[in-house]
């Protein structure tokens, strides 16, 4: 049983990692959801024990209720986060008309090159500095001549 569970955790985690490395955002999100499920299965495996349903005052050996409670919480959290991510992906699609990471990357590169361009104010300020320096040169040279 332990072997089967650990193998399935490994397979799910592996497929999730593979999907997350894809360029298509929908696959990345699928990978993230799978990853959450691999973690859930792992929590269940942490308390893997055969037994009856854990009621109070049970006379039989019971299974571990705590891991089930934890998994339930983790499922709810990963569900909420998945919804949030999907809405962000939708917003990204809305503003870029693409869910291809290559497209998003090139948009980022364009933005970065725009950032490196000096702004109009910076150019103006630099010109002003140059002019000041020239003025000073003009101001000093006659004295030297004199």
């Amino acid at each position: 049983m332990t072997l089967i569970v650990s193998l399935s955790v490994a397979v799910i985690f592996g497929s999730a990692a593979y999907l997350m490395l894809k360029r298509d955002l929908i696959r990345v999100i699928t990978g993230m959801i799978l990853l959450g499920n691999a973690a859930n299965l792992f929590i269940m495996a942490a308390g893997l024990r055969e037994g009856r349903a854990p009621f109070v005052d049970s006379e039989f050996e019971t299974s571990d209720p705590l891991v089930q409670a934890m998994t339930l919480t983790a499922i709810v959290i990963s569900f909420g986060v998945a919804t949030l991510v999907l809405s962000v992906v939708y917003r990204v699609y809305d503003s870029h008309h693409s869910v291809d990471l290559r497209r998003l990357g090139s948009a980022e590169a364009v933005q970065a090159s725009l950032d490196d361009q000096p702004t109009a104010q910076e150019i103006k300020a630099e010109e002003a500095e140059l002019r000041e320096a020239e003025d000073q040169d003009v101001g000093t040279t006659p004295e030297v001549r004199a």
Partner: protein
Amino acid sequence: MIIALPLAILWFGALFIALLDGTRKPVGYAAVGLLLAALSATVVLGVDVYLNGPKEMAIAGWEAGVGIALRADLLGITFAVVSLIVLTTALWFEVSRDVKARIFPALVMFMGLGLTGLFFTGDAFNFYVFFEISMVAAYVLASYGESPRQLRAALIFIVVNLLGSVLFLIGIAAMYHNTGWLDMERIAVLTPLIDQNPAILTATIVFVAFSIKLGLFPFHFWLPAVYTGTRPAVAAILSGALANIGSYGLIRFGADIFPRELREGAWIMLVLGSISIIYGGVQAIARHSPNEVLAYSTIGQVGYILIALSIGGEAGYAAAILYAVINALNKALLFLSASLRGWIAGAAFAVGAFSVAGVPPAGGFFGKMALFQIAIDDDQPWIVALIFLGGALSFVYMFQLYRARFWVNQEADEATTKGALGLVTVLALVIVAIGVYPEPLLLLSQQAASILPERAP
């Protein structure tokens, strides 16, 4: 009861604020007021804990040992106070200019709730739940502003940090499997009994999870992209408050729960910390946009915390706490003041820059001095050299940035309001005050660290 008070204020306050339109000024100021109330409650609790020792309570009236425990000790309270200060300042800053999304004040409060909760909790799984509350708030905050660029940044942030969260969850499940407990104190008592291999694996998973949050060198790749795109208040929140999860987590889980594994992995942390310092510093010098420079500076600053942790011992942990606290304040001040204009903002930025470089009138000096001290006590001259080199690098990139922002380019990106200027001035004064009169903070960090190595073998 008093432990739950800050949490209750933030919890009900956030729900209440979430129903209202956060773009209105009164709602924004109400949120600031609630955060201040939670901050004062935490400070009162901190004074109580300082005088009478740590407090503990079980949630919802369960017996101790069965219910989830809230545990307030000085380590958690120190981090909670710093995070709440940063959150309050950043929210106030944004409200004094213009809040762009109605949910913003409520999100900042939810993040405060998550952070305070995880600093106070004594239960590993509960830690994860609070951690996710603050992370989800951060996911939404990262897209605040909603320009295409901010959406892309939010996407990167979510994907990478979700990976970190899942790793952390797996780490907790592994801890539970190995010890049979979720209570952090009991786990800490039992970890020395675990076999070497599972213990090291679990410790490594937890270390990687927190390093992703902190933006440590090999896990830093998401950080510049996110910080460059976001607005200054959000960048201040992410680096001044959210990153505290990473430093607190490394100290709590490293020094408290896995002290043996921390000792064994010390050299790895030393190497990663050194690379972080140099990489962050060199990259920051090569960048131009202020948020990008500060983002790489964040990567560099984290390295110092890691080095302090790797040297270890009570003095090392105290230095790590001290450095983490001062670094959080520095980063909040720098991100906020770099977006303003005028000589007041320039002066405030200069204080932050001095503090990052570790020049005496600012608080950062004592963070660096504590590091120098432990490095000399540990007889490791090359760490002293490294810290000095890191300081020199930060001096260069900080003043490059200062020149570009406050000498050459005098026009503001956005409104420089009186309120915003007042806030950065107060934050700068706090950092100067720490530098002028550091005894309380030094004492606090030593007291907070003194609870850690008790259990170390």
